[in-house]
């Protein structure tokens, strides 16, 4: 009977179900009774272990939850395509995965600035061997992407503006991004892509989650970035375009727009619309063309 009485008291004491005065009284009893103290210590170990067991259980539960790494967490996975480091992709939908894409916006803009400076210095460097690869997490979606490609391919690209002969060099047919005519918005995949497909991305913080088209004013041939989205203003709905990710030898990533046979630099830190300007640096053009031929 005594034992049972103690069991109840110890249990209440250790699970915090005693009032402060009751606990104080019980602690006094413990101090006077070595056997009781032994029993309390014994029970304390057990209860603590039960708690640890539960903690481990909860932790493993959390550990099994898949959360997209970084910016796109929570975004519904629609179409996922990734670009491996040092890769160019001209498919309709694309997305760049980045192990370290967890920096804040402020940090990113700083990184972008330094990247830009580095990119300027690297313009004349030769390109490394690049290969393109699409990682798809959902086959169905890739099929959607493919069918979109076909649709765009059939459209006749129209040359416009003062294309210099040098820049107008024929390149392989660009597979354009065609946006949904209703919402003019492309849903890009989330970031749940196998990390093994990601190369040494640590420097390449720059990425674009989504491309948005504003074709309301066809003469407004400009672009801007906002929130990792690239906004293109102009007639990008009826004509094909592609976005090329160029990673020169030093692995500082840079984006270029290929539109109507010309390349336009998409400088990363443009948060207000800027006119798209065709690049004239012949070595960069050659590198980009070589990339797209692959």
């Amino acid at each position, binding site marked *: 009977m005594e034992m049972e009485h103690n069991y109840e008291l110890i249990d209440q004491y250790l699970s915090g179900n005693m009032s402060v005065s009751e606990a104080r009284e019980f602690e006094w009893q413990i101090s006077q009774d070595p056997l009781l103290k032994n029993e309390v210590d014994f029970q304390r170990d057990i209860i603590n272990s039960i708690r*640890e*067991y539960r*903690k481990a259980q909860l932790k493993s539960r959390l550990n099994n939850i898949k959360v997209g790494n970084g910016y796109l967490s929570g975004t519904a996975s629609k179409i996922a395509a990734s670009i491996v480091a040092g890769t160019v992709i001209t498919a309709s939908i694309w997305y760049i995965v980045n192990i370290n894409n967890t920096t804040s916006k402020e940090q990113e803009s700083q990184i972008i600035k330094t990247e830009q400076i580095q990119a300027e210095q690297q313009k004349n460097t030769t390109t490394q061997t690049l290969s393109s690869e699409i990682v798809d997490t959902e086959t169905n979606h890739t099929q959607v992407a493919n069918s979109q490609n076909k649709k765009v391919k059939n459209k006749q690209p129209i040359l416009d503006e003062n294309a210099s002969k040098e820049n107008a060099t024929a390149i392989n047919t660009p597979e354009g991004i065609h946006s949904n005519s209703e919402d003019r918005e492309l849903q890009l995949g989330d970031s749940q892509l196998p990390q093994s497909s990601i190369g040494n991305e640590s420097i390449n913080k720059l990425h674009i989650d989504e491309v948005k088209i504003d074709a309301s004013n066809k003469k407004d041939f400009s672009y801007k970035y906002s929130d990792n989205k690239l906004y293109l203003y102009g007639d990008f709905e009826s004509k094909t375009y592609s976005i090329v990710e160029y990673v020169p030898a030093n692995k500082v990533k840079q984006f270029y727009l290929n539109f109507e046979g010309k390349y336009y630099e998409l400088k990363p830190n443009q948060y207000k619309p800027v006119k798209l300007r065709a690049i004239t640096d012949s070595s960069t053009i050659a590198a980009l063309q070589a990339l797209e031929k692959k």
Partner: protein
Amino acid sequence: MSDEEVIARIKKGDERALDYLYKKNYKMMINMIIKNNGTEDEAKDIYQESLIVLWQKVISDDFVLSSKLSTYLYSICQNLWRKELDRKSKHTGEDEINKSEINDLDKTERINIINKCINELGETCKAILTYYYFDNLSMSDIAEKMGFANSDTAKTKKYKCKQELDKKIRTLYKASDFLD
């Protein structure tokens, strides 16, 4: 889910509330740690620990939420990461650790025995005991969660499970000469 709803669910031992919080705040917490010199793995580990600390705080009787739940979680996460950085900078020498480990060898072995016995319990017993001792659930909450007729059934089961566990542990202690 509102903060109040999340808290109410946690108090009832609903793990889905934890899942929800985990996903919702993942980006912010992981970023914070990575920005403060943590690796992604460390960030994940500390963030998970923080959620469990939050869970424990919420289920304690005197819990009062004085800010947004995410702000609260953020501060827990920050504290834990600070402690971890502290620990990392102090524990460069291995000697110190070994010393305390040797002193606690008996204790470690005793805890091992307890853990072994907990693992050998049936799933129902494990659930009842963890809900009672960790989640602080009342007997009627446990009865509801486990589908028992009433809180008395839960109380009896809890008592039996605890007796079974104690008995197992005592037997193994005896075999290892831990009991006089």
